[in-house]
């Protein structure tokens, strides 16, 4: 999984039936210290997060596992909201 920040939402009326009822969020991947890291992407929200929140997301077919038994065509899915990141001295 990778860290990211929610930076926006996507509205799509015409879409694959598997995406009906799913929340589409624009996320910016981040490094643990909060710098942008790579380009923005659209991910499904499996947790219930909002814009500007720090999250972590899963990539690939595993992103669709969040919605089983429904078959949702997704390759990026938010699976957690970050409360805190503890980075030691090492």
């Amino acid at each position, binding site marked *: *999984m990778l860290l990211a920040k929610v930076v926006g939402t996507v509205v799509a009326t015409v879409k694959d039936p598997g995406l009906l009822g799913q929340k589409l969020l624009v996320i910016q991947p981040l490094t643990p210290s909060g710098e942008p890291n790579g380009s923005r992407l659209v991910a499904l929200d499996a947790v*219930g997060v909002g814009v500007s929140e720090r999250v972590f997301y899963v*990539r*690939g077919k595993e*992103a669709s596992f969040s919605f089983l038994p429904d078959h949702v065509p997704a390759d990026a899915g938010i*699976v957690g909201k970050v409360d805190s990141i503890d*980075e030691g001295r090492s």
Partner: protein
Amino acid sequence: MILGRVTGSVVATAKHYKLEGCKLLLVQPIGPQGDARGVPMLAVDGVDAGEGDRVLVVQEGKCASMVSGRADSPLDAAIVAVVDAVELE
């Protein structure tokens, strides 16, 4: 699998139910000589790795689900070993 070094941990109360009880560690991918390679990631800890440990990370959902113990978990990385030594020719 890739080599990595545990650099910290992440606390997330609100998460997918299949991730409950999973310890989420921050891992910096490294080369065999320990040089940082790429972006830190989150991985489920399957071997009680600690901060600073050199570890082996599997980056695939089905395997990560084996480590978390719940089939079809929305996970894509898991720590499967703490590395004692790496020997190269």
